[in-house]
């Protein structure tokens, strides 16, 4: 009986200890910040972000974490934080426009030590509630399992939008890529499936169709998409892509376009027409201005010297492919484009610019730039750059860049948040980073997309790519998408457009 009572007391004590985390009353202050993983520093966060859980990478007998904002605080014990979602959400919502101190208390043999506070500023503006991305192993030729997933940014909930294994067989693999939405809403969206049961799934309010965008007059099916913000139109690049491998460089691979053009797909008419078709130009990465009256894109100019060895020459001269940014005016009603206008002469800077993205207010052009080429996700020197379209001032967004790759990037619908991929963690796997972009056009220190387990990314052997913001989740289930992809493909028709693709030299 006594033994049982002792157990009850012990159990009760343990339970009580687990529930009553409190900041130690006596401690010594340290001038250094605690060593945490992920290494969240002094950052700006949205009030609707999931808990930023951390693990302490330091020795100690006990750990107490405290979030403090004015008189309010949240406290928990343990070597890893796992903030309760509701408490965290309430706490952040009450801290809008204020600074949160993240305090760490570590018990050592000499007593408690309080480390220097880390400051998390809670922005007034929310981040879009959902993001989507493709999960892919950073391999080169093989891909096996790929999925497009959506994540609720305010929680840790992640759902599969579509997984290629729903249709892939051992022999017939299916690649999926380039999910894209119209105006951040998912009732108009698209993604491509290649090889087995291939086609572009186009979701509109009228339903879902599987379209083949390859016509006899275009290089390929659609590749990089850009939904027109107001009309049922999608601009695509069409690309004949090849890849070769570095024998020594850490970039590992070069993905090059052997040919590329731009096309416009009219969803209502199921028609494809050419936007740009110059065989001396490698046009790619279309992006609409928010008003839909300008199309931005990148293009590299290259004159092939020996057409009999065209492909070899393109590979050998890979460093000469440097992409500039151009734009064209567009009339959505007549679907006519104006002449090309140079926006950024990156080549003149011995650089190559890719993935132009215009901020929702139309003022800023964000893009990735490296020394050469168009596939910056494998270029260690790739960084994000910004052009203020009012002043045309160009600058390196040093606030967010690292010594490793920064590439694919998106603007939140309110223009206050940037989402981009980076290989900064380990050099091999792309992770998603979020950065605040303030009204003065300054980006703030980015932070890693939080996961419940702080060590998740270390154990995870897949990359995140093509991150896109959404204001609502995709409601079609993966199995339903598989059903649509199982259907017969509908071929798009080609519509020739006067003035495009005519009287061109050096046709190959």
């Amino acid at each position, binding site marked *: 009986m006594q033994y049982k009572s002792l157990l009850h007391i012990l159990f009760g004590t343990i339970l009580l200890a687990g529930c009553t985390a409190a900041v130690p009353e006596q401690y010594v202050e340290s001038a250094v910040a605690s060593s945490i993983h992920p290494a969240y520093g002094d950052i700006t966060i949205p009030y609707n972000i999931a808990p930023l859980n951390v693990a302490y990478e330091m020795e100690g007998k006990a750990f107490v974490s405290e979030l403090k904002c004015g008189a309010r605080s949240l406290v928990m014990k343990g070597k890893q934080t796992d903030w309760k979602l509701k408490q965290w959400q309430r706490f952040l919502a009450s801290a809008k426009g204020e600074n949160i101190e993240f305090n760490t208390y570590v018990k050592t043999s000499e007593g408690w030590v309080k480390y220097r506070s880390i400051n998390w500023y809670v922005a007034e503006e929310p981040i879009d509630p959902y993001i989507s991305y493709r999960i892919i192993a950073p391999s080169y030729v*093989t891909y096996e399992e790929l999925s497009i997933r959506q994540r609720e940014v305010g929680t840790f909930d992640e759902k599969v939008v579509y*997984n290629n294994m*729903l249709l892939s067989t051992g022999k017939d693999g299916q690649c999926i890529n380039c999910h894209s939405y119209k105006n951040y809403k998912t009732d108009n969206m698209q993604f491509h499936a290649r090889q087995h049961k291939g086609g572009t799934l186009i979701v509109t309010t009228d339903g879902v169709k599987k379209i083949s965008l390859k016509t006899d007059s275009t290089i390929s099916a659609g590749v990089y998409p850009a939904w027109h913000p107001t009309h049922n139109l999608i601009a695509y690049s069409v690309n004949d892509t090849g890849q070769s491998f570095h024998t020594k460089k850490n970039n590992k691979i070069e993905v090059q376009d052997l040919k590329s053009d731009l096309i416009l797909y009219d969803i209502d008419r199921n028609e494809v027409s050419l936007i740009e078709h110059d065989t001396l130009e490698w046009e790619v990465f279309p992006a609409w201005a928010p008003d839909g009256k300008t199309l931005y894109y990148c293009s590299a100019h290259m004159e092939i010297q020996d057409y009999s060895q065209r492909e070899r020459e393109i590979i050998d001269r890979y460093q000469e492919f440097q992409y500039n940014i151009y734009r064209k005016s567009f009339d959505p009603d007549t679907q006519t484009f104006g002449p090309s206008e140079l926006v950024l002469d990156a080549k003149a800077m011995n650089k190559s610019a890719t993935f132009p993205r215009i901020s929702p207010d139309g003022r800023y052009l964000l893009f990735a730039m490296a020394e050469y080429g168009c596939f910056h996700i494998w270029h260690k020197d790739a960084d994000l750059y910004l052009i203020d379209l009012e002043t045309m001032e160009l600058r390196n967004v040093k606030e967010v860049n690292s010594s490793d790759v920064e590439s694919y990037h998106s603007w939140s619908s309110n223009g206050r948040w940037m989402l981009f991929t980076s290989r900064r963690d380990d050099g091999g796997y792309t992770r998603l980073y979020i950065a605040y972009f303030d009204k003065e056009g300054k980006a703030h220190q980015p932070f890693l997309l939080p996961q419940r387990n702080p060590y998740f990314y270390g154990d995870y052997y897949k990359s995140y790519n093509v991150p896109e913001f959404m204001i609502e989740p995709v409601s079609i289930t993966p199995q339903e998408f598989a059903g649509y992809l199982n259907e017969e493909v509908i071929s798009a028709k080609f519509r020739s457009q006067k003035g495009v693709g005519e009287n061109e030299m050096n046709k190959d």
Partner: protein
Amino acid sequence: MKGKTKSQAKVAPPAMVEGNLLKRLPLIAGLSFAFVVWVLFNVFEHEFLFRVQELSLWLPTKVYFDEHMLVPGGLMSYIACFLTQFFYYPMLGSLIYVALLLVVQWMTMKVFRISSRHALLALIPSALILCCSMEAGYWIFQIKTQGYFYSMLVGFLFVLSAIWAYQTAKGWGRFAVILGVAAVGYPLFGFYASLALVGIALWALRSNEERRGAMALACVVLVIATPILYYSVYEQTRFANMFTVGMPAFTFSKRDVFTWIPYVLLYLFPLVLPFVPLKHDAESVTKSSFLVEVLGSASVIVVLGLIFWYRDPNFRAEIKMNHAMERLEWRKALDIAKAQKQTPTRLIVLNKNLALLKLGRAGDEMFHYLDGGEAPNSPLKIRLMQVGGKMLYYHYARMNFCYRWCLEDAVEYGWKIDYLKYMVRTSLISGEPALAQKYINTLKKTLFYRGWAEKYEKMVQNPKLIAKDREMASILPLYQYEDQLDGDNSLVEIYLLNYFAHTYNEFSTPMFNEAALMCALTLKDIPTFWQCFFRYANSHKADRMPTHYQEAALLYGNLEKGVDISKMPFDKMVELRFQDFMKFAQKHAVENVERDPEAKKLFYERYGNTFWYFYFFIRDVKSY
């Protein structure tokens, strides 16, 4: 004899089996079987078992567990991978394996109420499981089933456990077991839950329980309905695969029919056994019928083993060489190559050449071994890249290619210890310490590779240790080259031959020049040979010119007069032997001499250890 009739006195009663023997038979048979398997494993297959665990991975992390659970049958593969890692110590791993085979035997007897007399028959499922594991051969490089070696064993144990749980339950409890097998068993064990349900249905039908019809019907409905219902839950499994998920990832094509046989036999076992009357009174067992049954069952087990146990000498040699080379035991690798009695695969030849290069003996010995290009003995399309290419790329300092193929194969066939180890080392040499640390962190979480990982972690912290490491120090002389864009089309040997033979730059080291010359000899390209020969000679001025290089120079100098060899200081012995070879060749000249088996044999006996024999008689070699 008192009281016996006349006829009784004439006909002796049949000899009966002793009761004690019958009681102990399951134990005797089981232990004998386990002992034989354990001995066979440790005498003949310990290197294979070690390789099996190298080509697997188990991690005690949530991410790893969650990834297994993304498909039905996830727990089965998780447990299978967990058990596989113990083959790191083949004696321990095989002990666990045979112990589980004994559990299968014991449960088979218990579940199917098999009397002691039929104990050997109850060993047949264990024997079939063994066949499933040991028929693998080259499949270990290509199978996409995680924890392949153990998956059948774990799955079958679940089937037996489910049927046993049904038998043990009473009344509606049996219905609960059926529902549990479907609702919980299917996500955890996939197809094996369906197999268990069919087994339960047949067992129920055979029984005389009141609700047997309803129970059997429930099982059949759940076998069909469970995968359909779970289709909306699992987001990365094809609808058709929902019914087979958990079975080994062989194709249903003609190529894999043979591989399926032990599986199908095993699947049939729990379905057929309920209808086989195997319960006998021990006292009624005659010695003769007992002997027939024991010998019959034992013969079946032996025949199964003989048919399905993969025993290809080249495969074994490749596995052994790989292990020796991984431990930098280059001499041992050469001993294994030397012991080969049949035409080797290209991997054996390439491994042998690498070992000779490392030991600095290539110029004198590279043609002292059997040469050729026997195709791997497998119905699979084997790529050298999968079976040994990564090691070759690593040791020939093609770091990006080694890393690339580790990643490509990891994506296609799953992450493996083998790949992670190369990714650590290539990342270190390529100057990517953060990437190396990521893989080191993973290896540190394994049960048996923590020490290995910690050794390389020191190099992350102090890169100067890289050049001091014995293994890496022998690779760095080949790492002196400039970057270029290239591709190997997954043909390792062709790529390496052409790369080394046709590459030269100001940084080329003596070791690089030797590798180049070896490749030029293999290519049998005379202009390339001379280029490489002179580079080699220039970088080895102080050294004696090895025999094979002299042999090639003599032969090429005589075949084509483009290079004046008259002033070259050939060894007297080499010159005399070459003259002898020429005379011998003239004497035995026949049409198509290089393809004449008799001539080949004749020349091999006399000149089989020369470049001349290689040049004329090793032909039509196909790399893969």
